[in-house]
């Protein structure tokens, strides 16, 4: 909108003030700051281990970026993780599915759950926030109902390769996350699907009048959100070796925080995968750094809340200064 009239000096300032740039600088400062505080922090082992731990949130944060760019939101992701985990464990243990089939089945259930969100949002036009609040309760409720509070354990050894194994010294799931980041990044940047996401977020009516397949693209974004929640559940179950109905609780907060911290506007129309990745890494390192300096796990939830509000406050005041 104001891009045409911006002077050269302002555009130089803009590159400097770009959310991702500021964030990347902050990240480097935080890394060394935390490294100075604790000599166990800046070690290869610790950093790789943190990569392992952030994969579950990361896999969800990628489609979440898509969804938020369209101006929507999905707060049901944590519940979908719980549902997929339960479906995986239940269909294997109680229905007698072979484990690979159980995994595929749980991914299909995740995709179906996401598709259901998308259908209610695009067909019936219920606002995304309300739809996903309702399905959050529903999916978590289904997980609780199916499991009847029983946990499933005793998976075969090969199953743990994904969650606990290494490939060339790199945690298996971190490789999957890296591949997923590359795919989502390219799709967002270089495909008409990705560009349509931005068009919908900036002005949905205009996108519709430009004959863009608005509903189909939104439907795909929410379905991806469900599918990736399923993959996240698979990784999670494989890492912690058990299945419980309260799995993934609160994941929505971490994923949304990572995306917003990464500079994606909650009003839609702007945002990048790279930003979300930096946001994700920031949150994980913050958690880890704080834990190493002796802050308890629960207090780090508090810090994430502060960071979330602060980052959006700063982003909106930067935005205002630009305009």
């Amino acid at each position, binding site marked *: 909108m104001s891009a045409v009239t911006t002077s050269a000096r302002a555009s130089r300032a803009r590159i400097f003030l770009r959310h991702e740039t500021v964030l990347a600088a902050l990240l480097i400062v935080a890394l060394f700051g935390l490294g100075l505080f604790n000599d166990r922090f800046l070690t290869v082992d610790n950093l790789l281990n943190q990569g392992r731990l952030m994969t579950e949130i990361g896999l969800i944060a990628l489609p979440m970026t898509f969804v938020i760019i369209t101006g929507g939101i999905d707060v049901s992701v944590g519940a979908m993780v719980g549902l997929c985990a339960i479906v995986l464990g239940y269909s294997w243990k109680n229905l007698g599915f072979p484990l690979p089939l159980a995994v595929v089945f749980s991914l299909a259930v995740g995709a179906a759950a996401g598709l259901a969100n998308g259908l209610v949002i695009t067909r019936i036009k219920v606002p995304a926030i309300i739809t996903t*609040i309702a399905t959050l309760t529903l999916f978590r409720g289904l997980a609780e109902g199916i499991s009847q509070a029983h946990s499933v354990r005793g998976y075969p050894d090969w199953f743990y390769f994904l969650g606990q194994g290494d490939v060339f010294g790199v945690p298996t799931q971190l490789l999957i996350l890296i591949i997923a980041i590359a795919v989502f990044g390219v799709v967002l940047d270089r495909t008409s699907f990705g560009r349509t996401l931005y068009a919908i977020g900036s002005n949905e009516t205009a996108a519709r009048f430009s004959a863009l397949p608005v509903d189909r693209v939104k439907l795909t974004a929410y379905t991806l959100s469900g599918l990736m929640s399923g993959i996240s559940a698979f990784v999670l179950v494989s890492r912690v070796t058990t299945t419980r109905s309260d799995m993934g609780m609160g994941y929505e907060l971490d994923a949304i925080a990572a995306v917003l911290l990464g500079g994606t506007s909650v009003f839609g129309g702007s945002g990048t995968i790279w930003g979300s990745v930096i946001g994700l890494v920031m949150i994980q390192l913050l958690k880890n750094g704080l834990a190493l300096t002796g802050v308890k796990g*629960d207090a780090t939830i508090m810090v994430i*809340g502060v960071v979330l509000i602060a980052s959006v406050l700063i982003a909106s005041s930067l935005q205002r200064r630009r305009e």
Partner: protein
Amino acid sequence: MSAIALFRAPAGRATLWRRFFTQETLLAGAIIGLAVVVGLINPRFLAANNLADILLGNAYVAVAAIGMSMVIITGNIDISVGALIGVLATVSGSLAVAGAPIVVTWLAPLVLGVAVMGLQGVIVAYVGVPAIVVTLGMLSILKGGLISVTGGKWITDLPVAFHLADIEIFGFIPMPVAIMVGATAVAAVWMRWWPRGRAIYAIGGNAEAARLSGVSPRRTLVLVFALHGFFAGIAALLFATQLRVIQSTTPSGLEFTIITAAVVGGVSILGGVGTVVGATLAAVLIAEITSALVFINVSPFWTHAVQGTLILATVIADIERRRRRLAGAAR
């Protein structure tokens, strides 16, 4: 735009029917109908002490749903209220154990609730950060803060005088029920007939039109959040005093139960429409359903699935009904 069209009821016989066939009468009918059906299956459901338990144990949800309704009517949402109620209950209980005067323990959650919610209202109204983000952040601040301060320890040995829920008005109406009914009535009257209360609907229907007619959307929004905090304070008090112990953690999923009550009660998620009477009735209905499941031998682990289905169905019905009315108004 749509809000104006909705207030104009079609003329003729349909008006009378529609007047009667509101969300409130529908809910009241559902409450009675469910009681009859479950009572036939298992007469113990209708025992006086079970019905009293349903009301007593859930009055705090209804009270919190009043404030939530106001917030949703303005077109916003708050998902921090469950965590806030947990924090306020703990503060109140800790003060009581520390020997503070009972009046102080009862007033502290109200004041603190207004302060926290008012602050969120200021950020939403004046800085322009969406309510979903602010309250999501506040949720984790409150949740994390509470657990790291208390370590999840239960508060016990509460002084006898602290238990608001033990007081009975006229010797038979328990205090929580009286507060629930009283708060709903006051809020309903205020929102129906006072200009300040009407302003809540105005900014939810069309903020720009409201501004042009002399209502300050920002100030009204801060007021709504502050009131929501006040009701959350009362809810926390009822929550804290209903048992002899206070679990100093945030009741998980409470915010969703409260939002469900508001939405099932007929508060439109698109803003501008809804009443607090509906929200209170819906809170009672949800509590009744939860209790009924136990009496017809359904595992309590299915409660959330039923609740989720209920909210989804109501929301879809709400949108469909609006669409049909809009289509009717355009004809």
